[in-house]
């Protein structure tokens, strides 16, 4: 996982609510056994003209971009911060959805809400991959969305200070929250498993105290 301290980039807006992970990456692309190659598959059934979605085994070869898909607008081509509607990433637990967003070049996703901006599993998967899921209060989110609708907009995300800065004539700063354990890991780009294994003695102690029936009766 790539370490994340502060990051400045162009924002793009997909103003749809309840975007599910089947939409983010359709199931036929989950047959890959690799962890890479998902970038071109992001929103495959929306992003390309009809019939233009890539073959599952050739993600790099695809048709023209669809003119009516918001993220295809020329202003959004270099965007690396994705602004989305509420309940983003609902549905299937597929981590491929996070891999697709991250490998398409996005470093952070910003949704409106309080504990309901992102679906739970998507949020966990994003944190595990260093794709920062940021929830902002509705009004703050709307300020950013309005700026993006108006014209090219740059945003800085500062994970050390937990602040989002909307750049413009005058910068506007918004606070956000991330679970501390995840923040530490993302800041340092750490491996969660290695960290958990520091608790090996506690895990073993738990295993020794578990009720007999919870094991397997074979």
């Amino acid at each position, binding site marked *: 996982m790539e370490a994340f301290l502060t990051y400045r980039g162009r924002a793009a807006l997909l103003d*749809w*609510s*309840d975007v*599910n992970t*089947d*939409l983010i990456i*359709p*199931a*036929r692309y*989950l*047959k*890959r*056994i*690799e*962890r890479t190659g998902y970038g071109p598959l992001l929103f495959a*059934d929306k992003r390309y003209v009809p019939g233009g*979605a890539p073959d*599952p*085994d050739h993600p790099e070869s695809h048709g023209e971009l669809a003119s009516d898909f918001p993220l295809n607008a020329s202003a959004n081509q270099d965007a690396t911060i994705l602004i989305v509607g*509420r*309940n983003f990433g*609902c*549905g*299937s*637990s*597929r*981590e*491929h959805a*996070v891999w697709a967003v991250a490998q398409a070049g996005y470093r952070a996703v910003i949704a409106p809400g309080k*504990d*309901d901006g992102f*679906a*739970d*599993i998507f949020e*966990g*998967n994003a944190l*595990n*991959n260093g794709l920062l899921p940021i929830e902002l209060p509705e009004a703050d989110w709307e300020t950013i969305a309005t700026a993006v609708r108006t014209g090219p907009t740059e945003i800085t995300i500062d994970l050390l200070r937990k602040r989002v800065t909307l750049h413009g004539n005058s910068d506007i700063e918004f606070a956000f929250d991330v*679970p*501390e*354990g*995840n923040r530490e890991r993302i800041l340092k780009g750490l*491996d*969660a*498993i290695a960290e*958990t*294994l520091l*608790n090996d003695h*506690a*895990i073993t102690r*738990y*295993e020794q105290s*578990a*009720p*007999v*029936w*919870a094991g*397997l*009766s*074979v």
Partner: protein
Amino acid sequence: MPSAPDTLFHKVWKRHVVTVTEDATLLYIDRHLVHEVTSPQAFEGLRLSGRKVRRPELTFATLDHNVPTENQLDIREPMSKRQVEALRTNAKEFGVTLYDMGSGRQGIVHVIGPELGLTLPGLTIVCGDSHTSTHGAFGSLAFGIGTSEVEHVLATQTLWQGKTPKALGIEVKGKLPAGLEPKDIILAVIRAIGTGGATGHVLEYYGPAISAMSMEGRMTVCNMSIEAGARAGLIAPDDTTIQYITATKRPFAPTGAALESALADWKLLQTDDPSAFDRIVTIDASSLVPQVTWGTNPAMTVDVTGRIPEPDQVPFTSREDARRSLEYMGLTPGTPISEIPIDIVFIGSCTNGRIEDLRSAAQVFRGRKVAAGVRALIVPGSEPVREQAIAEGLDRVFTEAGAEWRQAGCSMCLAMNPDKLTPGQRSASTSNRNFEGRQGPGGRTHLVSAAMAAAAAVTGKFTDVRTLLSQGV
């Protein structure tokens, strides 16, 4: 002073705490179920870092998503074949039991866990699959995880959890009328609270309609908890639960002294008092009519006696999002549900692929024929379900009606195997998601119960199954 009342969910959670930090909890995981789609990158991660599976004897794998249900052994698509082979190789290399095709035990991961006796009250169960919530029907805390977490559980048998979820009580009052099924209850719940209405929560279903329900029905209800955004959904164990676990031989269920100690323990697995819930939503089962989804998320549901809504009258959804849904579904506001013709019927999946679902569909198919121009697929959720259905003669009811009787797998629930919709085709499906493209690019999905799906098959459109059942044949 008596201690404050606690919820079932919280009791199971607390039993599994290994350690806590400032804002996270390390939970011990009792059972890890694995399928071919979300595991290859996790095993590869172990390999790259030289790690082993900590408790291979608590880890169980099966093949379900890619399986061709016409002939399981004939996997023609090279990528599907590669994914299936990867799981076979990984299971062997890491010492994990795999229920392969033809083993007599293969099936959809959420159907076989309970069949094998792996799913028990009070356990923590995870799988790289959001419908893991199914296992909550037994009073276990069961939830879906991503592939990084699959790797984490393989390596450590534990999982970090952030903020402790809140407990949302779903009280289902009354008696479910004839012709209605647990599927109608869960669709009505999602319709009431919205597709993100339970985000950050664990649901507990209770009340007379739940107590009266079979384990199969309870699994249908818990299965779709995720469609309301819930982390998990569970039901307190009772005599019905214990009967399911003990009356049939289940290879991994406790017996003898272990069972005695388990039974004493499971008695404690109850919510002490509804006041312990953070919030309660009440549904009256006796007033329900069969439910049909019209849109592109499972909260977009109406009564079979209703009509397609106007875009500005869709709860939880902006006018623009509703308009896009209607356009995708090719539907006009005001159209009666009972006038919508269908092309394909799919009866199966981890939601409704169990024996009781097949019995209920057979009751409608018996003595009737699949309507002209309609194709109906009946897909058992597991090899044991298939055997049981054959023993009861249900397969003949289906084939005599002109439906296709298939082998076990996820089939048309998601377009990862040869069973899929073609663009523009409309299905009546017993699965769990009506998302755009879920059953195939451009496919249009309407979610219904098994009985309603069978009624759609024999009439070619959405039909209130109660009218067919009261007619007799």
